[in-house]
Every structure is written in C-alpha cells, then in structure tokens.
C-alpha cells in the first residue's frame, strides 16, 4: 500500500530525502533570467537544451559577476519549496568554460579598475631583504615546493610563516582571505605576504578572480606579492597585489637576492678598495710633488728678483765712481786754494802739480 502524507509532511520528507541523497551538488548550466531583488536576493534559472531549474542565492554569496548566457557551475542544495516548486539554493557559483570565465573576469576587472584597486599609485615597494615573510599556499602543491626550494637556494636566515590553504575550488577564496586576515592581525607583522599557486587550468585558477579575495589583497596592511600560475596567467589578485611575480619560483627571485651574487659583490667591493687606496696614495704623492715644484719655482723667482736688484744697484753705484767722471773730461783738484799755492790736479790719465796764480770767489 502506498504511503500517505499531508502536503506539508510530503514537502518536508521530500526535502529530507533530497538532503540525505544530495546534501550538496554541483550543477553546470547556462544562466537565464538573472535578477537581484531588494538588493540582496539573487534569482536565476540554470538551463541546458532540455531542462531548466530555478536557483536562489543571497547577493553576498555572489563572488563573481554573472550575466545571462554565461555558463556556470553552482554548488547548491536541492530543495522543494512550500509552494511545491523545485529549486536550488546556491552556496557558490563560478563561471565555467573559457568564454564565461573570460567574460566574468573582464566584467569584474572593469568594475575593480574603476574603483582604483589596480592603480599603480597604490603599489608599495617590497622590503629589499625581508627577514619575516608570510606565505599563503597549499603546502602540498608543486608551486609551493618550487618557491621554498628557490628561496632556500637564494637566501638564509628568513623567518617564513606558512598558512596552508586550499588554492583551488570554491573554498579557496575564503581560506585565503582568512589567512590574509591572520597575517594582518599578528602582533609581529610579516614584512611581506606571498600568495603562491602553481600552474593550472583557467578553472583551477578562477579562485584568484574572486571579488572578495581581490578586495582583501588590496586592503592588506602588509604588502602582497603574488606568484600564481604560469607567466601567461594574470589573475585579478595579481593586478591588486603590490608586486606580481610570473611564477612561484619568480616570486622567490623577486623576494630575496641571490646569496652567491651578494658574496661575489662583497668580495669585489673589498678587492676594489686596494687599487682605490693606491690611487689615493698616488694622488697624494702627485700633490706633494706639485707643492715641492711650486716651492722651487718660488725660490728661483725670488733669487732672480734679488739678482736684478743687485745689478741695478751696481749700475747706479758705477755712475758715482770718480774715475768715470774723470773719464768724461773732468778733473779733481786738491790742495789749498790761494795765489802762489801748489795744487794737485788729477785727470783720467795724469796727475798735474800746478801753482795757483789767482783765486777769486765766483
């Protein structure tokens, strides 16, 4: 005999059965009749070419832009409403397929760009050589292993705090946000937070295009460095980060210098000092030689000056020599001047004795 139920009981037992059989399902389909009511309730239909299911979710659960025609995967609980309508109560939704992922990416990128979240003015410099870093990644992931290996090869003495989180799937954005909040609320803040995830499909990396996660990165007190996917992958988290590395390995390269380079550079610095000192000594010597030459020149100049003075004085003295006067025809007269007196007259070439005949005052 078939079981009999009241209507409410039947709806309740159907929901119990659904909950037991499908507590959470993922359903892929195309979005139609998308609308937001009262600024908080989201309604849309999920359809394929043969069927359609009504979907309901809260606006805060909507982490990526959705439009009619986009292919999505919803994580939801199936439910029969009290009006007998079957629907999916959606916990999370993400674009599916290259076209939809790209479309959703572009819509959110445009929105956040308009708000200035990717603005170059917001970017902060990373410390030259950090001492304390926070890493957010899955410790099981190859990308994390690459990052740690390169980090250890390049530098030592770092304190590396690692928050292991899911880096793909619907849980990933919230876990990463919690890890960001954790690092940002520590008494001893790390100097930089590094978000690491190795390569993957567009779907795998879609967690890094989550609106709330992108906002959390932009709001981080601690500068954020991202190393997500491969060189060709650019997520919205990359755009919001202070610095974007092309890969996890590249993130380690950006974060710390290569110790071999530093050792080489330190040795080179010291080696360069020796010729530098020799150069300085040589310049000192040249300077001293220059001074000595200057002193010798000055002495010579002074000697020349004295010689010229001496010659000039000699010429002057020569002019007063009595012999020179005699040579010019004058005579020196000696003796008592008076009539009858004998006087001596000296010429240039002769001395004459003469008697004075007369003597008169002029």
């Amino acid at each position: 005999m078939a079981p009999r139920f009241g209507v409410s009981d039947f709806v309740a037992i159907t929901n119990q059965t659904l909950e037991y059989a499908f507590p959470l399902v993922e359903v892929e389909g195309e979005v139609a009749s998308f609308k937001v009511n009262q600024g908080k309730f989201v309604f849309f239909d999920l359809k394929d070419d043969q069927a359609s299911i009504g979907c309901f979710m809260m606006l805060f659960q909507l982490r990526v832009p959705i439009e009619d025609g986009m292919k999505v995967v919803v994580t939801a609980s199936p439910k029969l409403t009290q009006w007998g309508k079957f629907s999916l109560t959606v916990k999370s939704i993400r674009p599916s397929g290259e076209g939809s992922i790209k479309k959703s990416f572009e819509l959110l990128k445009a929105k956040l760009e308009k708000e200035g979240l990717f603005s170059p003015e917001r970017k902060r410099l990373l410390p030259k050589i950090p001492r304390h870093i926070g890493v957010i990644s899955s410790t099981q992931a190859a990308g994390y292993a690459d990052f740690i290996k390169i980090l250890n090869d390049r530098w030592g003495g770092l304190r590396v705090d690692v928050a292991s989180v899911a880096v793909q799937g619907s849980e990933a954005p919230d876990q990463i946000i919690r890890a960001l909040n954790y690092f940002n609320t520590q008494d001893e803040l790390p100097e930089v937070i590094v978000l690491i995830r190795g390569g993957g499909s567009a779907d795998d990396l879609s967690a890094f295009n989550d609106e709330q996660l992108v906002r959390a990165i932009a709001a981080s007190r601690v500068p954020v460095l991202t190393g997500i996917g491969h060189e060709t992958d650019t997520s919205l988290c990359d755009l919001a980060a202070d610095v974007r590395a092309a890969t996890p390995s590249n993130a380690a390269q950006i974060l710390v210098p290569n110790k071999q380079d530093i050792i080489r550079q330190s040795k080179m610095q010291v080696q360069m000092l020796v010729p530098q000192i020799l150069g300085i000594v040589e310049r000192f010597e040249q300077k001293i030689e220059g001074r000595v030459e200057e002193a010798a020149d000055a002495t010579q100049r002074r000697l020349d000056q004295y010689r010229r003075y001496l010659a000039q004085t000699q010429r002057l003295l020569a002019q007063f020599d009595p012999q020179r006067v005699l040579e010019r025809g004058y005579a020196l007269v000696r003796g008592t001047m008076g009539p009858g007196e004998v006087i001596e007259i000296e010429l240039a070439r002769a001395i004459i004795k003469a008697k004075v005949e007369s003597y008169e005052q002029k």
Partner: protein
Amino acid sequence: MSKSDKPTIQEKIEQLDQLAAWFDGDDFQLEQASEKLKEAAKLATEIEQDLNSVANEINEIKKSFASDNGQ
C-alpha cells in the same frame, strides 16, 4: 640593529657599503685606510660565512583556515 644586538646579514651588507663609500667620501683619511680595509675584508668574510651557514626557519601555522572558527 637586530634585537639581539648581533648585526643581521643585511646590516653587515649595509656596513660594508658604508665602508666602501668612506673611501670616496670627504671623511677619508689615509692613516685610517688600512684599518678600514681590514674591517671591510672581515665583513665580506662574515657575510659569506653567514649566508652559507644560516638556514631559513619555516613554520607551518597550526591554525586551520578551512572555517572561520578553525583553530
């Protein structure tokens, strides 16, 4: 200077940079050059030793980030 007053690698690199800059600066004195050169050589050796001997300390945080109240 670090908390333990023992200079870190980065501080030693900065000290070496300052020493090298001293040789180009106005404070240079020939009488002190030999001492400063010895100091620079000692720093370069210490930097090499530190870099080759110090390992990174990697701590995985025990807290679970799977849910808001995860411990």
